[in-house]
């Protein structure tokens, strides 16, 4: 029942959770000249607690910033990354914007959605995986692109996509193409988005694959920018 939209109205966090969130929230609010600027980060923060922006989460943001709950809901519903139902532990996106769609993203989506048995913005009954049809994620040179918990999985195929999701559901280790060694959960990712460090910035390549093609050509030909005077 609690997975249904709006099922838990008027809920609040248990005191120990509230205390922890409040500590994080105050640190985040302190970074901004005006407190309301912290609203988007705080929505990511409550999403890191619940896996979606719950009623208690809306209430918490409103209290921390001195806003009405309606003002907070008005903002959270504008942005697609704030979810109104619990997402999976692994939120899997397939880019279906024009270029990725043409390069194979449409076929990946069709096959993956059928394989997993859920549609856009839906979660598997075990709560492991949710799927989303993504708009352009700024990795077009790696098309077709998928994202899991907002980490890059470049150059996908229908088979690699299904394998990826099977591995996630089986609890196997999965490594993003350009990202840290270990894939974090949707809640952990939301905490980074809120502005709190997970210490993983040093992992993974500086750049990889297509990002380096131009530099490789330049080096092979000895091409450089003009010398500084």
């Amino acid at each position, binding site marked *: 029942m609690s997975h249904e939209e709006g099922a838990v109205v008027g809920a609040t966090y248990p005191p120990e959770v509230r205390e922890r969130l409040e500590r994080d929230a105050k640190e985040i609010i302190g970074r901004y000249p005006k407190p309301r600027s912290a609203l988007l980060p705080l929505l990511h923060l409550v999403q890191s607690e619940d896996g979606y922006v719950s009623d208690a989460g809306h209430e918490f943001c409103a209290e921390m910033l001195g806003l009405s709950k309606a003002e907070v809901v008005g903002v959270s519903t504008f942005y697609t990354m704030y979810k109104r139902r619990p997402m999976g532990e692994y939120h899997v996106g397939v880019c279906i914007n*024009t270029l990725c769609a043409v*390069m194979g993203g449409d076929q990946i989506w069709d096959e993956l959605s059928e394989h997993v048995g859920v549609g856009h913005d839906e979660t598997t009954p075990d709560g492991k995986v949710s799927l989303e049809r993504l708009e352009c*994620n700024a990795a077009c040179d790696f*098309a077709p692109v998928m994202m899991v918990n907002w980490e890059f999985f470049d150059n996908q195929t229908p088979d690699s996509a299904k394998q990826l999701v099977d591995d996630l559901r089986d609890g196997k280790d999965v490594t993003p193409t350009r990202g840290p060694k270990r894939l974090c959960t949707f809640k952990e*990712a939301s905490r980074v988005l809120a502005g709190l460090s997970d210490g993983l910035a040093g992992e993974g390549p500086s750049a990889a694959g297509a990002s380096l*093609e131009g530099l490789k050509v330049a080096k092979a030909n000895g*091409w450089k920018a003009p010398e500084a005077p």
Partner: protein
Amino acid sequence: MTTLTPVLTANWDRPDSFTLDGYGDYAAARKALTMDPDAVIQAVKDSGLRGRGGAGFPTGMKWGFIPQGDGKPHYLVVNADESEPGTCKDIPLMMANPHSLVEGVIITSYAIRASHAFIYVRGEVLHVIRRLRAAVAEAYERGLLGKNIFGSGFDLELVVHSGAGAYICGEETALLDSLEGYRGQPRLKPPFPAVAGLYASPTVVNNVESVASVPSIIANGAEWFASMGTEKSKGFGIFSLSGHVTRPGQYEAPLGITLRELLDMAGGIRAGHRLKFWTPGGSSTPIFTDEHLDVPLDFESVGAKGSMLGTRALQIFDETTCVVRAVLRWTEFYAHESCGKCTPCREGTYWLKQVLKRLEKGQGSEEDLTTITDIADNILGRSFCALGDGATSPIHSSVKLFRDEYLKHFEIGGCPFDHAPSTVWGTA
């Protein structure tokens, strides 16, 4: 022949490029902070640098619009909300070389007399956000941010702020509303952000690549920068090739390079196929065909041929691709991302989507082509921001260049293309 000029991409193949050790010692910022702030603005004006986020407005001139001695706080906001379909340069830049941006932020903030700066980065790129935050933290640790930088008396706080999934927030005033904690909807202009931006204070909003280019201008001089590029489009820029290309990727070159030259470097169109259509600067720029292979990719030349340089997002499609399908999908994107504030854009993109769906299925009529161009005419220039205008670019340009392909759809009662050969694994 134009050759590549790696500057921002030059250190990307170093495993430590995202750390201070792999970047350098912020010599340009050190130099800038000994200069008069107005001299920094003048240097950027002299370099001819134009905004790299698509519009191409002269960067130094934008900085010069900030009123000085007005007693108000000034702000720098870096637009790192890269979301225009096809555009994929700022994301790898911030992942591999975030310090070029942080150093650019220091110099820019000093020039416009801002002591608080923000990087508004789209939320859907977790590792990029980690890298930016780590670079900012490293800069604070070394005294490159915070109080009294280089003993100059200049203070600067820099905050990395994650968005939450809204293409519209790449529009500068929508971005400011979002950064203030509201729904990201564009503001009526004027007043422009230079006068009333973040918290109604004078604000510069610059694209990532623009700001990241500034340290090289200060270090090497305006003349060095202006020695690259064309008469009115100076310097270098990252060109992003994607789609049906042998080696898609990021190619940093002087403005004015042509697609023919870039394709030569990228191994050409994928084997056995030929170029059909392409965008010079993202989905909001009218499409080109193989007739435009030799158009210099600078602001003026691309404009003269009826499109826009935009973000140099070169999405390449070969002859296996259905134009109507591509335009439908871009239109679905604009309908999805329209913020709903302005009626022509909100309603227009919705109806464009409906009619195009019908056309793609081969259930339309020739009259529908008049309908979609009429709708597009009624969006263009009638909304607060450029999202609406952008939505009309694929419509107008595709109907003009590929009218026969639209007609073919309802002549045969369906799409004449098999989509399988367009895929990476498809065989023709």
